[in-house]
């Protein structure tokens, strides 16, 4: 699949072409010599009378080398007067016109003009219709004032005649090739000269005086910046040069900075330029810039302008990567494994077919999924026969990935708060053949109350999307201060809910992965640090991902716990994946009863601060039953072992049932269970037979 139009459009506009400058000059009335030589001759017949055309024709004929061609040209006016043949067929039939003089165009024009004369007389509609652009263009000139029309036409036709130029160049003869190429050379040279002049004229401040680049605001500079704000299109080349210069200065400030200028001035200048060049709002640009050293920030902004590679994930429930690659290659797709770190990813370079509609896609052999979306699932690493929760599942890429890792065993709760997005989720789950999923539509914050005791939980939180600006450039302008307050708040609530949903006593799991497609610290490290402070019963563990940068332990004066080193950040400019953040927690004990709701936590702020104290807390909390037992002891009764045994058995059964298993099946083993199922099978068989009889 090729790069979509959305992807292509996201970059800054291309620098203006040389022809554009020439046109600008022409509009201003400055004489430009580079207009194609054909213009005068092509203009004349259009506006002139029939006589003028004929005079022109005669000139063309005189210049024609062979008599045969002349004949052909002679025939032309007659055919035109008949007005029966169409323009297209005529231009095909007409023999090769005189080289270089543009008589090809002349003929068309003649046709248009003569047609104009005859249109009323002959009333041949076909001819009028097919006369083509030029005919209508000349028609325009009737309404416009002469001067303007002439200008317009020159402007208009310069495009059209490029095509004719190509035609003509095919018919070049040895005689004129030299002249034409010389003409072209001259043209190019003139344009280059024009360009240079243009650049010099513009308020350029790129001259480097000695070693120290002049980046900061002179008066001219201010003029420029005001210009860039007022004009529709800022001078991008200029801006870029200035950005690179500013970066150079900031990297070696003591040597390169102008005297008397502070670092802050350079930085703010750079910030303004970045905003203008890439189209960020100031708030977001500053936020992103603060994440990196200057040079890296620039690389990050640059990376956001180019699309990430298209990656597909093999569905191992249905096929193998090798088979899939082979069948896609047979369809004309160029691909290769995405990297050593993934056994299921394939990177697509080029495709002749739409990747989202191949028979393999529809049969669920793969799903289009960004490489970064593999990472949280790989970090979570769900095992077979576990109970897993995906708190924000749509569109189902990660959910089905988990189902594939679990080989369709256990159970996956795929939750998504949006009903409309859930449709895509259900579609993907069925298409990829995941049978162990339950799709529900809760607000994920309700979760420990709906269902708890999960072995693993994946929380791919809704976020500002600052890591996927390449995918969705609207982020550049949409995000403001408020988003970075509201979103982290939601994320904190979600993360606490996720932690509370995990079953700490799970034999195989007890893990939780928190991920966002954002690079902002507010949505990542701060949220994780908050969760660590509020839930003393979780700790960060290594994600197990083979690459990625360590998370921040301190950022702009904020200190985070040192364990945040174990989180991983992914950047587009370093790994060519979307910007991403992954943190993996392990839950070691039950959530203290006084910390279930975040609101209640406020009373309880002092407790979680010191880790040892909290450990003791959790130990105490682990056995809430003993507390009740204590009460009993204080009262009257002794332990009644036999009665307790009954309760214990019942509790065990309940626990089994809660885990979705039939307690009878394991307690009493095969015989009873077998009988039941046999009975049912028999009943069904009879039904089946009935059905068959009917058929």
């Amino acid at each position, binding site marked *: 699949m090729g790069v979509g139009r959305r992807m292509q459009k996201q970059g800054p506009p291309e620098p203006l072409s040389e022809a554009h400058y020439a046109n600008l000059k022409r509009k201003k009335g400055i004489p430009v010599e580079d207009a194609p030589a054909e213009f005068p001759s092509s203009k004349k017949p259009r506006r002139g009378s029939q006589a003028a055309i004929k005079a022109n024709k005669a000139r063309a004929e005189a210049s024609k080398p062979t008599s045969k061609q002349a004949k052909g040209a002679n025939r032309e006016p007659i055919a035109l007067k008949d007005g029966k043949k169409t323009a297209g067929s005529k231009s095909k039939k007409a023999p090769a016109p005189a080289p270089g003089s543009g008589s090809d165009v002349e003929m068309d024009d003649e046709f248009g003009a003569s047609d104009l004369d005859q249109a009323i007389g002959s009333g041949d509609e076909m001819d009028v219709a097919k006369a083509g652009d030029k005919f209508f263009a000349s028609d325009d000139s009737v309404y416009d004032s002469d001067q303007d029309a002439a200008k317009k036409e020159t402007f208009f036709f310069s495009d059209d005649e490029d095509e004719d130029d190509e035609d003509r160049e095919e018919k070049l003869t040895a005689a004129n090739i030299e002249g034409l190429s010389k003409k072209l050379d001259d043209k190019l040279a003139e344009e280059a000269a024009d360009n240079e002049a243009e650049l010099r004229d513009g308020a350029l401040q790129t001259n480097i005086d000695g070693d120290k680049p002049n980046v900061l605001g002179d008066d001219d500079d201010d003029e420029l910046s005001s210009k860039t704000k007022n004009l529709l299109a800022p001078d991008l080349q200029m801006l870029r040069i200035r950005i690179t210069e500013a970066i150079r200065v900031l990297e070696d400030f003591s040597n390169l900075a102008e005297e008397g200028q502070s670092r802050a001035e350079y930085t703010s200048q750079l910030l303004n330029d970045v905003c203008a060049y890439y189209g960020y709002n100031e708030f977001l640009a500053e936020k992103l810039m603060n994440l990196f050293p200057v040079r890296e920030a620039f690389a990050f902004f640059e990376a956001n302008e180019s699309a990430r590679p298209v990656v597909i994930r093999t569905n191992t429930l249905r096929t193998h990567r090798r088979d899939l690659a082979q*069948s896609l290659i047979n369809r004309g797709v160029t691909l290769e494994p995405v990297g050593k770190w993934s056994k299921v990813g394939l990177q697509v370079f080029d495709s002749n077919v739409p990747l*989202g*509609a191949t*028979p*393999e896609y*529809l*049969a*669920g*052999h793969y799903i289009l999924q960004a490489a970064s979306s593999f990472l949280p699932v790989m970090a979570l690493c769900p095992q077979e026969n576990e*109970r897993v929760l995906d708190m924000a599942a749509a569109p189902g890429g990660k959910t089905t990935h988990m189902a594939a890792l679990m080989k369709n065993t256990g*159970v996956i709760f795929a939750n998504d708060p949006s*009903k409309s997005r*859930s*449709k*895509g989720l*259900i*579609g993907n*789950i*069925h*298409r990829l*053949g995941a*049978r*162990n*999923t*339950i*799709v*529900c*539509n*809760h607000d994920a914050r309700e979760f420990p109350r*709906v*269902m708890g005791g999960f072995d693993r939980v994946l929380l791919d939180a809704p976020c500002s999307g600052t890591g996927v600006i390449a995918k969705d450039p609207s982020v550049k302008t949409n995000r403001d201060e408020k988003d970075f307050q509201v979103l982290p708040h939601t994320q904190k609530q979600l993360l606490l809910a996720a932690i509370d949903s995990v079953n700490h006593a799970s034999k195989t799991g007890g893990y939780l992965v928190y991920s966002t497609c954002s690079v902002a610290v507010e949505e990542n490290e701060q949220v994780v640090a908050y969760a660590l402070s509020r839930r003393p019963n979780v700790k960060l563990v290594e994600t197990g991902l083979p690459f990625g940068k360590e998370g921040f332990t301190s950022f702009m004066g904020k200190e985070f716990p040192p364990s945040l080193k174990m989180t991983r950040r992914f950047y587009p400019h370093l790994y060519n994946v979307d910007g991403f953040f992954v943190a993996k927690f392990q839950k070691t004990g039950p959530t203290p009863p006084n910390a279930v709701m975040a609101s209640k936590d406020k009373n309880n702020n002092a407790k979680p601060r010191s880790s040892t104290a909290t450990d003791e807390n959790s130990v105490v909390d682990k056995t809430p039953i003993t507390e009740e037992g204590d009460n009993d002891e204080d009262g009257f009764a002794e332990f009644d072992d036999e009665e307790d045994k009954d309760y214990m058995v019942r509790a065990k059964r309940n626990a089994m*049932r809660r*885990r*979705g*298993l*039939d307690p009878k*099946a*394991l307690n009493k083993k095969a015989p009873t*269970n*077998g009988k039941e*199922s046999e009975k*049912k*099978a028999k009943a*069904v*068989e009879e*039904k*089946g037979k*009935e*059905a*068959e009889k*009917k*058929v």
Partner: protein
Amino acid sequence: MRPLVESETKIVFDKLANYLSDLKSLIAPLDDGDRYVFRLNHSRVYYVRLSIANLATSISRDKLLSVGTCLGKLTKSGKFRLHITALPILAEHARHKIWVKENGAQPFLYGSNVVKAHVGRWTEDCPEHSGCVVYSMADVPLGFGVTSRSTADCRRLDPTGIVCFRQADCGEYLRDEDTLFAGGV
């Protein structure tokens, strides 16, 4: 969500019997003591492991959008319509099969019937109007339909004659996403 009642079970099994050779295997107990059951939610029939169905009881009816594999829909007129999502289950135990050639896969996935010229091979002795699963030549299930004639009659058919009327194809995942998975809305 609830188990199917007697009458509903009959309708569903009648339909499935069109396609499957072995209904018993659908509900046979699995090795780990589990088994597959049928569940109804918002007039959609789901085919799911019992343990998963039990867990799903903790999700309220209007919040539960899908569980396990959706087989199809019980219509208000009391019929059962198989959806494309049932394909993996039908393909596993299919009685009659048709393999379409490479040039026939695309038209079929775009919603047209299977014509004779596109048939690569088929199961012999297939009677008229019986359900059959359509595969590509690489044995990838693409959809299912109903045979228009018995295999013997089909031999006399001209190449453009329709062999199998399409009922569902994988292309519906893209075409009908809005209506197909709207359970619970």
